[in-house]
């Protein structure tokens, strides 16, 4: 902690004077503890706080980010000047913790490595004002700052506070440019073009391996293809996905599924070769676009499989979205499999509680499995229709 001596003297004198001149009892000289964290995204978790003049402030900073940060409290209006002075320290910067030795710096906490905590204790100025705090680590100062209000009054509305970073002038609970926007908000544009289904994202998806892919089809139906395990993991109806938190880049975040999941694979693996209980070794080979629909290519024990997933006909409700929204109807999925080299019996397994009814273009249903001859396995389709009232 650094406290310029002149300042200290000045403060002590001021305090002493204030103490002598007032009839306020000693125990009313208040003290407060402020806990701040440096968090991912070049920011402090709190971008402002207020203290009354003369308060003893213990400011505790924890670095919860994955890079180093410091904290300097500056004279009102001196933030940018202090950031510049820190940068101009040049090769002397690291040893000085990027804290310039200038009077505009009132108090400071030196550079904290990730996970470290340090504190500084000081007496809030008698002069009312907005005292910026800022990280002067190179490259951070332009965005990583906040404001200590020395005031007796209430703070201005967050959204209209020019003393905090613009990105933080929103309620944190509402922040994040979420796609789950209210009806009056314009949907955000995520790309320099308007994606038209079918389109897809390779993203982290809950309920799948980390090598997953969300595919948006026409008719408000979407599915998760798991490239890590080579199978259709689940499918849903309604919206597509919200990647707004994931795309911020840090922490344990996933894409959020928007809609109702109507199918979830609950088998060990749906395709079996040779014998009905043989789980093949799979490898993901990629996909080719056919009329923009991905046709996945993977291997089962080395045998090529191609799988194309398209929306099937809706079972009821409005068939065309353009006719106005009355009922979304029930969607279905049609999976077309090609196995040009098939030379063994193929079984397709499913779980009775996976949410859908099955129809197949070939093969025989037997004891909960679809059995296909090698000839039939070379090309067949499986049609999956959601059952009523299944919760997944």
């Amino acid at each position, binding site marked *: 902690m650094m406290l310029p001596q002149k300042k200290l003297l000045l403060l002590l004198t001021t305090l002493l004077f204030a103490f002598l001149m007032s009839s306020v009892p000693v125990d009313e000289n208040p003290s407060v503890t402020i806990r701040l964290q440096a968090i*991912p*995204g*070049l920011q402090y978790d709190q971008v402002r706080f207020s203290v009354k003049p003369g308060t003893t402030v213990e400011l505790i900073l924890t670095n*919860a*980010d*994955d*890079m*180093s940060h410091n904290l300097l409290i500056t004279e009102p209006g001196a933030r940018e000047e202090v950031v510049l002075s820190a*940068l101009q320290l*040049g*090769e002397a*910067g*690291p*040893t000085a913790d*990027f804290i310039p030795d200038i009077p505009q710096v009132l108090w400071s906490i030196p550079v904290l*490595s*990730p*996970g470290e905590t340090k504190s500084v204790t000081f007496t809030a100025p008698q002069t009312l004002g907005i005292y910026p705090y800022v990280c002067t*680590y*190179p*490259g*951070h100062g332009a965005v990583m700052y906040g404001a200590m209000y020395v005031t007796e009054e209430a703070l201005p509305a967050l959204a209209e506070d020019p003393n905090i970073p613009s990105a933080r002038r929103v309620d944190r609970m509402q922040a994040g440019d979420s796609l789950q926007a209210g009806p009056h908000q314009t949907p955000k*544009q*995520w*790309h*320099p*073009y308007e*994606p038209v289904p079918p*389109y*897809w*994202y*390779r*993203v*982290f998806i809950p309920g*799948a*391996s*980390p*090598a997953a*892919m969300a595919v948006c089809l026409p008719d408000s139906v979407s599915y998760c293809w798991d*490239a*890590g395990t080579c199978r259709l993991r689940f499918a849903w109806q309604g919206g597509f996905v919200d*990647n707004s938190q994931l*795309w*911020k*880049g*840090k*922490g*344990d*975040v996933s894409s959020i599924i928007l809609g109702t999941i109507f199918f979830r694979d609950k088998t060990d693996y749906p395709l079996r070769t040779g014998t009905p209980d043989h789980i093949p070794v799979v*490898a*993901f*080979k*990629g*996909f*080719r*676009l056919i009329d923009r629909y*991905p046709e996945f*290519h993977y291997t089962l024990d080395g045998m090529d499989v191609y799988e194309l997933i398209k929306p099937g006909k809706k079972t009821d409700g409005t068939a065309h979205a353009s006719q106005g929204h009355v009922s979304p109807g029930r969607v279905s999925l049609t999976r077309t499999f090609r196995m040009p080299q098939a030379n063994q019996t193929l079984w397709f397994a499913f779980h009775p509680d996976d949410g859908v009814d099955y129809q197949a273009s070939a093969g025989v249903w037997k004891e909960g499995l679809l059995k296909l001859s090698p000839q039939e396995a070379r090309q067949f389709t499986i049609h999956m229709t959601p059952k009523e009232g299944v919760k997944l």
Partner: protein
Amino acid sequence: MAVGCVTDPDQPASDVSYRVEAIPMPEGLSSETGAIAFFPDGRLAACFHRGEVMFYDPETKVWSLFAEGFHDPLGILVISPSELLVMQRPELTRVKDTDGDGQADLYETVTDDFGISGNYHEFNYGPIQDQAQNLFIALNTASPNGDVREEVRGRLDHRGRAPRQMFAAVPYRGWIMKLTPSGTLWPYACGFRSPNGLAFDAEGHMFVTDNQGDWIGTSPLYHVQEGKFYGHPASLLWQEGWDRGNPAELPVAALDSMRTKAAVLFPHGIMANSITQPALDHTQGKFGPFAGQFFIGEMNQGRIVRVMLEQVNGEFQGACIPFYDEKGLRKGNNRLAFAPDGSLWVGQNDHGWAGDRGIQRIVYTGKPPMDVYTMKLTPEGFELTFTQPLDLSTASDTSHYQFRHYYYEYHQEYGSEQFDIQRRPVTQVSVAADQKKVSLTLDTMKAGYIYELTLGDIRSAEGDTLANKLVCYTLNQLKK
């Protein structure tokens, strides 16, 4: 799909020898640049964090979409006008336009034979290709600020997990991997934390950057060779036959004796905080006098650094120097690539770290810079070669060569302070007859230190001032 450019480019800024120009980006693009690469015809391929792979034609200034949907793509290798390799989180992918409509229709897995735990920090870098058509990729370790996902790809091993330690809970995180033309992915070298930059020099030696953090006192550039360990212990868990438990719990001295040190260290907060991709100047003079040297991006400042390597006793070591500072250059200089016209393109990124977004290019104006061209170790000190003949009076003044030395500790902690900072006086200066070479004699020379040189107001014979005055030489070995 053509996309109009609406964003106004920044005002071009320039200094004497180089100027920066902003590339107009398409409206609606979050231009966190994951990678940039050029086609021989001058068109640019670039990828961005939300998964777009786009082409830009500098002639028409039109962007077009080539492919989409990638998961944090951070590397592009151009194969042909219709085919790219793209490095993304789950795999290295071949992306191809097979029907000639200008958009990719084939996404083939080239390799996914490595683990992903789903930790947010498991970025993948590369590929680069050697003369024998082998591809090399680099796998970032995972961050202790995140967890692993419920379902992972690859075998899980939690032994290396500890607070504040980057970890490798699935195979080959923290490794450079080699993909042979036959398609097999082999572990090649380990000990990396965040190897966000791979490149070959003109002779085919591989160089890889890493980032300051636990076990890495300051950001390094490594000369990478097969089978070697470069210092961050997490990846050792996946070394064949590893039976020594949590590698980070080995005595530091044992780890230190196993590791290969960096060829060049970039003093933290002085030269750079977070270095990125090295780009070899293969422009044969189109970009100025530094052909054959590496330029490397820096995330935290508007800076590109330049590296001057040499071999001492058969091992690479050398110096780094700022090349371009501020003057219109944004922060976040994550990706560098030379265009066929000899300009250096820089793709910017932030993605939750210090940085910026967009693409700029640095253009050589044709006015030769007054700069340090090379810095070489001699038995008595250093020999500096300048790009231009020197003014004898300013160049002969010992006070214009201020050295200090220091070192960074190899330890588990995040980063390192500078230790044993001492001034190292120059006792003698001699300028060679060509007026470009200066031999400096120092009072003592010690291996294991960074020698940081601050140059004074040395002028060229024509009166030009130095473009850059700070040079840091990593002295691993004295000349035998």
